[in-house]
């Protein structure tokens, strides 16, 4: 796994986009430690790939959170219609940040992209927490060249960190396959 780019926010911004993603890796990993400026305990996150705001996204989620029992949902549509990933908001306990982990296998392929998301927004509060796992799909034949994430109607706050890594397949010359 090799770091492609890491952004540590010195000022609040409405969204962060990784552009001109090298096409030389096999998979992509995006790790986020973030906090939204929303006054709520958490904010939904929009994921936009290749600047595509069309109805080309679908997602299934399993979440456990402060509002009741574990739940599962399926959504499809535009990035704002599949905004099911949450991150810690500024109404939560001070100095707490939520975590997102994205895995994009075979991001340069010409088939539909299937990806994985793990999410926590733990705030040392019994009334404001969420964790979830997500299956995502981006229906396109284009390679992924850019990834943008942005909190709904708010900014990523100072101190948020977003890091993009590339994973390259290969062989050590020892392990054999059949």
């Amino acid at each position: 796994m090799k770091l492609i780019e890491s952004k540590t926010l010195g000022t609040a911004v409405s969204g962060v986009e990784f552009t001109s993603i090298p096409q030389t890796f096999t998979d992509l990993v995006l790790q986020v430690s973030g906090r939204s400026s929303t006054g709520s305990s958490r904010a939904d996150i929009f994921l936009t790939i290749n600047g595509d705001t069309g109805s080309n996204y679908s997602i299934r989620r399993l979440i456990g959170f402060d509002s009741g029992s574990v739940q599962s949902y399926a959504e499809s549509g535009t990035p704002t219609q599949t905004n099911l990933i949450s991150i810690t908001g500024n109404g939560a306990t001070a100095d707490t940040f939520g975590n997102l982990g994205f895995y994009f296998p075979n991001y340069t392929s010409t088939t539909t992209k299937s990806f994985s998301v793990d999410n926590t927004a733990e705030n040392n509060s019994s009334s404001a927490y969420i964790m979830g796992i997500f299956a995502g799909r981006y229906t396109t034949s284009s390679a992924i060249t850019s990834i943008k994430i942005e909190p709904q109607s708010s900014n990523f706050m100072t101190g948020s960190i977003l890091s993009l890594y590339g994973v390259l397949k290969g062989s050590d010359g020892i392990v054999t396959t059949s």
Partner: protein
Amino acid sequence: MPTATYTPLATVTLASATGTVTFSNIPTSGTYRDLILIITAQRTGSPVNVGMRFNGDSGSNYSSVFMTGTGSGTPPSGTVSGTNVQLDVYPYPPSSGFNNYIVQIMDYAATDKHKSVLVRVNDAGNATEASAARWASTAAVNSLALTLSNFNTGSTFSLYGVIA
């Protein structure tokens, strides 16, 4: 998910449909602490779950606990056991498009503990699932085999070592 460096060990992209993909001669000398297996899979034929077997052990030495988001209703959870690690319970490789599996095999070369496996499976058209599995053996993992009635052409399997 760990962010330590992944060292590529081997990869397979299927040029034709096949029922089993095996990784052999996995180093157990202590170079790596964990193994990471990334799969993107598509099936031929009827829906079947993917199995993973270590060291050719066909005994009833595998068990898992899982939780699943199917997209509606009460999310299922439970346990499964059998003669391999069942990598998926509700999801399975689709007949068109690909799903993905992220598999972490912890401390795989240890000879004093049963092996723990964490699995994430994702198919936005079917389900998202997380599971934890155990192989009831203290043997170091030197091979692993993945089985399905048929993995279709284009399915990919990449194995990485993670240095402690």
